[in-house]
């Protein structure tokens, strides 16, 4: 007995046996099981993915018996999924695998994730302060159009970025006025913002450019070139847009602001219990206005990436966001209203988009089906099957000052 007690007091060993640790370890191992079978590791036998997957599932079961049921079942699911994907990958030919899972997949994942990160972090600020922002899609679309317009007329991508941020903030200000001061239903208001953005961008696209593609030679968002990293790494992160790196900074900054500063505490207080925040002297309206406008600015910057980034090449298309604002919203929910979670979800969704693009070469229908993944995952997440997502308590509830 004394030996057991001594081991329990050992801090590292005790921490390793915490159900939280084992659960997360199981999920990571489950993901690793699938990665074993694809390049750059590319084990050509099914043995390794199966072994690692079984370990992941066992860790999950252990976690379930220790009380963290949802996390545990998540690890079990990750293990089984890892085995399945591993077997699938070892069955397909090595050259196809090499063509699919190369460094450009990483680069494309990051590229697809960039606008989602901006949108999701923006939406997170708004919702943390207690205002649901369904209008992210519209604010993104505004950024996409007015960003190109600014870059075209101003002659520089930086001016385009400023114009996009300004217009996104302005639209968000209109929404904030309706949602906060007029206390209109926030879902209705957000829907209206989405309509308005489609109409306004479409109208001015015709008015200013006569529905033609915006002329070539618009100053584009620059890429950051990093040399001397080696083949794989340079292919994946050596030539990314400046906004992709900015997104990384944004996630860290959002975490620090939201959880480590007094401003963040105020924002969260307004989202959890506005009356209490008001009582201690926080100006709830001011905080909410600030957060909603910030969400508009960030969403619009995400939007300009679509038109001015490497995928857009300086052209605007009618309704070009095509649901990306809603994926950003989904990423925020899937990430449980946290910056790191939202970024991870955006990466996952970006990965599914990048994979969908790659798979289209082999099978059109498989590529299309992969596009569903973000929405199904979010649906599962809000259903509470794997780790329940919890919105801020006063999210979506207008606040009336006394």
């Amino acid at each position, binding site marked *: 007995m004394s030996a057991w007690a001594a081991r329990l007091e050992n801090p590292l060993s005790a921490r390793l046996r915490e159900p939280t640790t084992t659960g997360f370890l199981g999920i990571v191992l489950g993901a690793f099981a699938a990665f074993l079978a694809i390049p750059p590791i590319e084990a050509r036998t099914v043995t390794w993915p199966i072994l690692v997957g079984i370990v992941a599932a066992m860790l999950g079961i252990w976690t379930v018996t220790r009380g963290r049921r949802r996390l545990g079942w998540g690890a079990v699911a990750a293990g089984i999924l890892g085995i399945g994907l591993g077997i699938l990958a070892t069955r397909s030919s090595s050259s196809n695998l090499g063509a699919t899972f190369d460094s450009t997949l990483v680069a494309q994942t990051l590229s697809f994730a960039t606008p989602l990160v901006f949108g999701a972090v923006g939406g997170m600020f708004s919702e943390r302060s207690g205002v649901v922002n369904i209008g992210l899609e519209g604010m993104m679309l505004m950024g996409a159009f007015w960003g190109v317009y600014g870059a075209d007329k101003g002659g520089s991508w930086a001016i385009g970025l400023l114009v996009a941020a300004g217009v996104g903030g302005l639209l968000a200000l209109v929404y904030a006025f309706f949602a906060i001061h*007029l206390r209109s239903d926030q879902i209705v208001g957000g829907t*209206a913002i*989405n309509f308005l953005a489609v109409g306004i961008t479409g109208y001015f696209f015709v008015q200013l450019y006569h529905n033609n593609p915006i002329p070539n030679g618009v100053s584009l968002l620059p890429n950051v070139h990093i040399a001397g990293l080696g083949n794989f790494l340079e292919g994946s992160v050596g030539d990314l847009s400046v906004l992709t790196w900015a997104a990384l900074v944004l996630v860290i900054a959002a975490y620090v602001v939201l959880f480590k500063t007094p401003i963040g505490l105020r924002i969260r207080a307004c989202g959890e219990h506005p009356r209490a925040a008001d009582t201690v002297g926080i100006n709830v309206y001011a905080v909410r206005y600030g957060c909603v406008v910030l969400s508009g600015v960030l969403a619009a910057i995400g939007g300009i990436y679509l038109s001015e980034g490497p995928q857009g090449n300086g052209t605007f298309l009618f309704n070009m966001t095509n649901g990306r604002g809603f994926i950003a919203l989904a990423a925020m929910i899937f990430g449980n209203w946290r910056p790191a979670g939202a970024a991870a979800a955006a990466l996952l969704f970006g990965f599914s988009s990048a994979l969908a693009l790659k798979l289209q070469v082999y099978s059109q229908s498989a590529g299309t089906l992969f596009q569903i993944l973000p929405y199904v995952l979010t649906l599962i997440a809000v*259903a509470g099957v794997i780790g329940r997502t919890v919105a801020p308590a006063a999210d979506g509830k207008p606040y009336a000052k006394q």
Partner: protein
Amino acid sequence: MTDPGPSPPPEAAPAATTFAGKLALKQRAGGIIVPLVTVIFAFVMSGIIVAATQHSVHTALVVFKEIFDGSGLNWIAHPTTNLFNTSAYNLSQTLLQTTPLILTGLAVAFAFRCGMFNIGGNGQYLVGLLVANWLGVDLAGLNPFVHVLLCIVAGTLAAAAYAGIAGVLKATVGAHEVITTIMLNWIAYWTASWLVGAGGPLQISNNPTDPVSNQVSPSARLPDFWGVQGFQGLHVGLFISLAAVVVFWVLLNRTTLGYEVRAVGFNPDAAAYGGISVRKNYIRAMAISGAFAGLAGTLDMLGGAQNYQIGQLDIPFIQVGFIGIAVALLGRNTALGTLLGALLFGGLLYGSFHGLGSSSVIDPTLATNLTYIIQGLVVLFIGADILILYIWNSRKKLRPPTAGKTAKPAEAAS
């Protein structure tokens, strides 16, 4: 609002617990005037946009005249059933667009009356559309009446089940229906793209690269009653959606089910205290709501569209369910109001598309975008009940007190 504490000052709207509660309040406050004010507001503001960008007030006025004429509503002035008459033809096309909008509007309205926001009309519409297409193609050669009925019933039920997912999730784990229905929208959209995409199960059989579905067989087509069969004539689906308006009214106002749905919508806690199962009603209301939207999809498939191509519908995918929201809000979530709202938006859609398609004063492609702006403004202002109430109340205050002084003190204060 769950904040305990003293009630808000009487100038503001009393804190209603749910959206449906707030709507009931608005209904008492403004009647039909508020929607009218909202629409006029939206038209005036979009008129200002046109006038400002075209540098001419006259142009703006001509634009609205052309939209009105294009919608065929000037048919009232000299009615005729002769389709060679432009206004009669335009009216038939406007009614064709109105048909699904009535139903998606009813779908949103029904969920609203239960205190829920069904933003998933798009997805449910698509489910109805695709099921109707599948059965309409596969069961070719059936008795036409049986075939049409089968397609409509199956599509409607499938959409009801699809919307029911959101209802079940809300009832069991409390997942917010707005989030779940948005996700279901996009799941439906990509599933549809897969179904009719290259190599998909519903894709056209004689051309494996064309991303379009097969045409429904002639036995599954809804007969046109006004216009040339097969050439965008007005089909009998209009009567089905008019019947749905009656069904909506009876269901909501004359049955136990409707009473329970409305009770839950006003105040779920009070309804539960009164012995009504809130969970059961969430699921039921969401399924019925989805059934209306799905019915719209089946009618569009069997009547006008007859096949599905990604991004190629009379009313594009991103629109049909969302316009339903505008329609329902404008119609105060009542049966008759939704019908009128659908007619307005149907007219606006076709009128701006057709009437400005040959416009003499502005670029025709501006027209549809103007419609989106007007829709957005209508939805924006109709949601801002306090603004409208404020204007309404200040108008009352400005009016000199009536001679009889019949106003009760409580009313005078509000």
